[in-house]
């Protein structure tokens, strides 16, 4: 159980020495140049409320049995809104006792009225934890409430008991989508009495996944209405910028947000740490791995309990080895260092969690597996090996240290990835910024269509029904045209010999994922899956495909069969597809002209895009030099989607650049930087957004050619002289990289000024000389020698794009 509310604070904590604070001071003096930013969050005292009067006495007894005499104020507030029947979302930090916010009303309803509840967790491990915790409270009060998990691991003969006897069923969205809703009649007993739907870790339901989950919830509520129940939603989330909005989108209803935490918090120090530069010209720094190990070793030596977060399972193993080499050399003494990640057996993970809670482990190295609410007791130090990708995720991981009223230290060690370097060089961005917005678009046409199929299978639609914000009648008519639905006497019946939920994955938009098959040594083993949309530029023949940073080479791509055959390789290079993307602007939804004089225009609208993946570059590790090219023979990719684009007034452009070629270089570099910043701002993966430079009329487009300079090509892909087109108004596009869009470009347009300013700052503050993968993209070594600086051109373009067009600073 996470910190029980009202637990007595150990009295002597404050008077004790402050080991985490001391370590922070030591690092600060010794490595001042590596620390680019620092933040101190002061301690916060707990705010309490008595147990509610209307709380069932059995439940109150159970709480007292667990040492809980009073509630935190946010727990009491949640109780009040839920008892008033409002959908409620609770947004408070890690370890603030969120689970009690939903367990109390759920248990009360189960005790008093035999009402039932459905819990949704994004992962199986969390679901298991939750049942264990519920059971602890249940046993403390001898409440007799039955909670079961229902997931892929539930044995067939146990499923019936779960369906018919569970008061609380704990599952995940995928199981709800494929296992429960299509068979809802078997779940009638649960659904008829369903009073609460609990959604924990709500912030994980964003982007494509969140859009699908919102539709699964629409289906669930529809089925509940069929059984005459109208359940109340209780959602919990880590800190994000727009919790009520996300909750409202997910449950499609008004939701009351509780955001003031009453849980006490010890003071927190956060250091942003950049490994020292090894080669300034190439922008190469010492590895994050060695820095992370150094910091964690110092901490353990000084008796601090530490957690290290790494971004891959492999890195977890590597860091664990380094730490064990230092502290667990003697096999006779119990281990002080442990690894924790997905892929371990559940029993092994439970043992590890227990050891962590007991404090017998000094350092645990983990993937994001420990980021979500698994209880691991109190820790002093959290080291992040690399930026987790989002501000919210970073805080969530940092929250793992200092759970119980004691100074905690967090260190974010940047890797050489562009995003990390941006964050670390702009500490005020990270430290001052509110966390990201979590965006979903439940009415994305393809996603919505998938769920309308599933919903029609579950229960025929009637004329006039509403499902989502698109015209349901027209969507159903479309499905009827395709022969899977039949309209008869005012109802739309599913009419196909198939089970639609099976072909809909909650984690993607496109159909027909590719499988990656390892054929090394004559075997045939599936080692990965690649989205349809990212297949063309990741698994072309000759590509180096990375799994856990182990390189595989694609030998053959079976496009029709959706298979890529790969073998293990030891290549010292990676590959980067060269794509020629032609965009044609179809419709402008909105447009904003820059201030007087109108230097630049930014617009948002629908575009038609044709991508040809023409070839690929081989890029050597570390030096990032091109060491060769290969051809790719793949069909063109075609897509209609939404985009944001920037254009510069031709006169201003002429005045700013000596040649069109220079301007092109500037646009390409600026696009690279904008892409980095946009992905970060939009809380999305960088492949969710695409970028392109062209005239917006599919007549010409620009790419970085073999020379490392911008090249202009016509619609056939042939290089043309930049001086050739009569008009020269290049446009820089950032687009939603999914057919139909997934709702990124609209908020991107809203945030246009921040994004341009962020990109400009990224380029301005980069420590490279002429450009590097951290700012405007890799450049050729020859440019370094010549002194040509694509970076300067990019700066110029970005300055023109920023609304006030400030003069260039020499």
């Amino acid at each position, binding site marked *: 159980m996470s910190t029980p509310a009202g637990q007595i604070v150990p009295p002597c904590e404050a008077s004790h020495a402050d080991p985490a604070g001391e370590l922070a001071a030591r690092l600060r003096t010794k490595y001042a140049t590596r620390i680019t930013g620092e933040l101190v969050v002061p301690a916060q005292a707990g705010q309490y409320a008595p147990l509610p009067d209307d709380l069932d006495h059995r439940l109150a007894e159970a709480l007292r049995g667990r040492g809980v005499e009073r509630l935190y104020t946010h727990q009491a507030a949640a109780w009040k809104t839920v008892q008033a029947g409002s959908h409620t979302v609770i947004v408070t930090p890690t370890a603030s006792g969120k689970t009690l916010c939903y367990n109390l009303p759920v248990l009360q309803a189960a005790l008093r009225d035999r009402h039932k509840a459905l819990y949704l967790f994004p992962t199986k491990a969390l679901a298991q934890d939750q049942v264990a915790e519920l059971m602890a409270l249940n046993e403390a009060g001898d409440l007799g409430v039955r909670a079961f998990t229902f997931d892929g691991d539930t044995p067939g003969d146990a499923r019936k008991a779960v369906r018919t006897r569970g008061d609380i069923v704990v599952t995940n969205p995928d199981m709800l989508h494929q296992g429960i809703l*299509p*068979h*809802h*009649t*078997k779940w*009638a007993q649960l659904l008829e009495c369903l009073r609460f739907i609990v959604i924990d870790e709500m912030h994980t339901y964003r982007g494509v996944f969140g859009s699908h989950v919102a539709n699964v919830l629409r289906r669930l509520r529809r089925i509940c209405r069929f059984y005459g129940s109208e359940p109340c939603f209780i959602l919990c989330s880590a800190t994000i910028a727009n919790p009520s909005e996300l909750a409202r989108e997910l449950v499609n209803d008004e939701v009351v947000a509780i955001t003031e935490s009453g849980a006490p918090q010890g003071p927190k120090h956060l250091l942003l740490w950049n490994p020292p530069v090894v080669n300034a010209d190439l922008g190469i720094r010492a590895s994050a791995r060695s820095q992370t190990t150094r910091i964690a070793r110092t901490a353990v030596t000084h008796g601090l309990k530490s957690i290290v977060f790494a971004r891959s399972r492999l890195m977890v193993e590597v860091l664990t080895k380094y730490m064990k080499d230092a502290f667990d050399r003697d096999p006779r003494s119990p281990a002080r260092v442990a690894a924790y990640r997905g892929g371990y057996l559940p029993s092994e993970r439970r043992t590890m969690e227990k050891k962590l809670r007991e404090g017998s482990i000094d350092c645990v190295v983990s993937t994001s597996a420990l980021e979500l609410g698994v209880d691991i007791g109190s820790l002093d130090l959290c080291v992040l090996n690399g930026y987790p990708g989002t501000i919210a995720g970073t805080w969530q991981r940092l929250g793992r240290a200092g759970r119980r009223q004691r100074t905690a230290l967090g260190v974010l060690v940047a890797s050489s990835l562009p995003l990390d370097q941006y964050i670390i060089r702009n500490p005020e961005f990270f430290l001052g910024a509110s966390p990201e917005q979590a965006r979903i678009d439940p009415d994305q*046409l*393809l996603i919505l*269509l998938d769920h309308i199929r599933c919903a*029609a*299978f*579950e*229960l*025929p639609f009637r004329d006039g029904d509403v499902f989502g914000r*698109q*015209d349901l009648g*027209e*969507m159903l008519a*479309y499905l009827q*045209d*395709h*022969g*899977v639905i*039949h309209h*008869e*006497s005012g*109802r739309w*019946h*599913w*009419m*196909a*010999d*198939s*089970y*639609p*939920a*099976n072909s809909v994955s909650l984690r993607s*938009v*496109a*159909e*027909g994922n590719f499988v990656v098959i390892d054929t090394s040594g004559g075997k045939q083993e599936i080692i990965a899956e690649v989205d*349809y*949309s990212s297949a063309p530029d990741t698994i072309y023949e000759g590509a180096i495909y990375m799994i856990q940073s182990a390189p595989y080479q694609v030998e053959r791509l079976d*496009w*029709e069969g959706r298979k890529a055959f790969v073998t293990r390789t030891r290549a010292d290079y990676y590959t980067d597809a060269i794509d020629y993307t*032609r965009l*044609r602007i*179809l419709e402008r939804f909105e447009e904003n002209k820059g201030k007087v004089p109108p230097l630049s225009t930014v617009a948002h609208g629908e575009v*038609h895009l*044709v991508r040809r993946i023409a070839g690929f570059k081989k890029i050597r590790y570390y030096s990032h030099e091109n060491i060769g090219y290969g051809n790719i023979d793949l*069909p*063109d990719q*075609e*897509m*209609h989607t939404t985009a944001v684009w920037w254009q510069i007034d031709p006169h201003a452009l002429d005045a700013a650049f000596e040649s069109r070629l220079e301007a092109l270089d500037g646009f390409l570099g600026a696009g690279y930087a904008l892409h980095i910043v946009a992905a970060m701002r939009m809380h999305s993966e960088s492949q969710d957004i695409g970028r392109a430079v062209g005239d917006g009329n*599919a007549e010409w487009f620009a790419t970085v050619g073999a020379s490392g300079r911008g090249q202009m090509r016509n*619609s056939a892909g042939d290089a043309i002289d930049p001086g050739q087109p009569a008009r020269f108004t290049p446009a820089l596009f950032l687009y939603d990289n*999914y*057919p*139909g869009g997934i709702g990124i470009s609209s908020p991107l347009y809203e945030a246009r000024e921040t994004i341009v300013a962020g990109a400009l700052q990224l380029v301005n503050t980069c420590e490279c000389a002429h450009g590097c993968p951290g700012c405007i993209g890799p450049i050729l070594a020859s440019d370094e020698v010549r002194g040509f600086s694509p970076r300067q051109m990019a700066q110029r373009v970005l300055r023109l794009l920023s609304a006030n067009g400030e003069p260039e600073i020499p």
Partner: protein
Amino acid sequence: MSLKARLSRLQSQAGGGCRDRNKGIAGTGLRTRLAHLRPERIHAQAPSGGHAMPPDELAHALRGEICDEGLVHIRRSIRLAEQPDSLILRSLQCNPGLPGDAGTSGLRCIYIDTETTGLSGGSGTLAFLVGLAFVDDDAITTRQLLMTRFSAEAALLAALARLLSPGDRLISYNGKSYDLPLLMTRFRMQGQEHPLGTLPHLDLLHPVRRLFGKHWKNCRLITLEENLLGIRRVDDLPGAEAPAAWFRYIRHGDGSQLARIVEHNRQDILSLAFAHSLLARAVERPRDFGVDIHALARWLAETDESAAIGLLRSHAGRLCDEGMRLLGQLSRRTGNWKQAVSVWETLAANGCVNSLECLAKYHEHVSRDLAAARRCCERLPRNAAQGHRRRRIDAKMEAMKNRLRKHPPAESCLPLIAGRIPGQGTLDPDT
């Protein structure tokens, strides 16, 4: 642009129609392209030229009648007296008995099979055709209920419920996991009460699997018909094509395939009734039907061990090793040690380790012939358990020798050993 046009365009861009990917990609105007966009993945076939058949015409063609709006009821009987030469009709019984059938003798057997709109189940799959067969002393009657439209489902289910009464017993083929749960789902979707959960139900697939699973290539109904009933269907439309046949009628009024599905379903329930009778015969005369004797004996033994032993003994010369082992096991359980030992000895001679072990246990614990136990033990494969056993027997032999030396046996000791109740296998400390 209409929503429909946008949808079909997006679907094809999301990988829905990869085969057509190379066509029509040239960067022409959007409107022009839309005109060229063919609807993809259309399931509906064009009507096959035949005219659309209204429900009453369909009912007539199927020799049935409209009994409710959109619901066709087809009732047909075969009088047993009309075909006195048919072996299969002659073998038909009203209430055939199978092992473990005690308590079902007064019940009326109803054979049931459904045709559904999909084979994967789920709440969107419905049973558009339900067939029942009833056997009387002089006739076998089939009643089939066919929906000609979605809205007739409520009427179909109500009619089905009316045909069933509390004294009935349902007999199906794979109905436990397929037909019955599906029908129960349909009753729930229509908000109707139903008796299905309370009626006794026998799924013939299970006994068929037991008795013939090892000998037949599979246990599908078709295979059952060929091997047990000696029937080979002519011009049968496989059940897997049922969904398409019904959809074809719903979309285009084309009932040609539907008639074949109705016939297929009728054949299924008739076969079920015959198979039930013939299974009862096969249990009585297993050798004539090629029944797996071992499997039948195991089945019998669940309710009647002596019947199982009788069956095994009557096939003594032809039993497989498993059958022999079962005979040994049953003999031991019923205290017939003599028979058990003779079975084990035969098996042990063929190298059956398990039987050798049984013999060693028997000699050590029951007959107390330690020398014989030691001999059996010697023939067992060397492993930890064997070593343990050998040492234990040796120790016992040693102790016996010492005892005999000190206290020569009195007459009164012997009955103690002989009078020991042969155990339920609990005699042996190492089981």
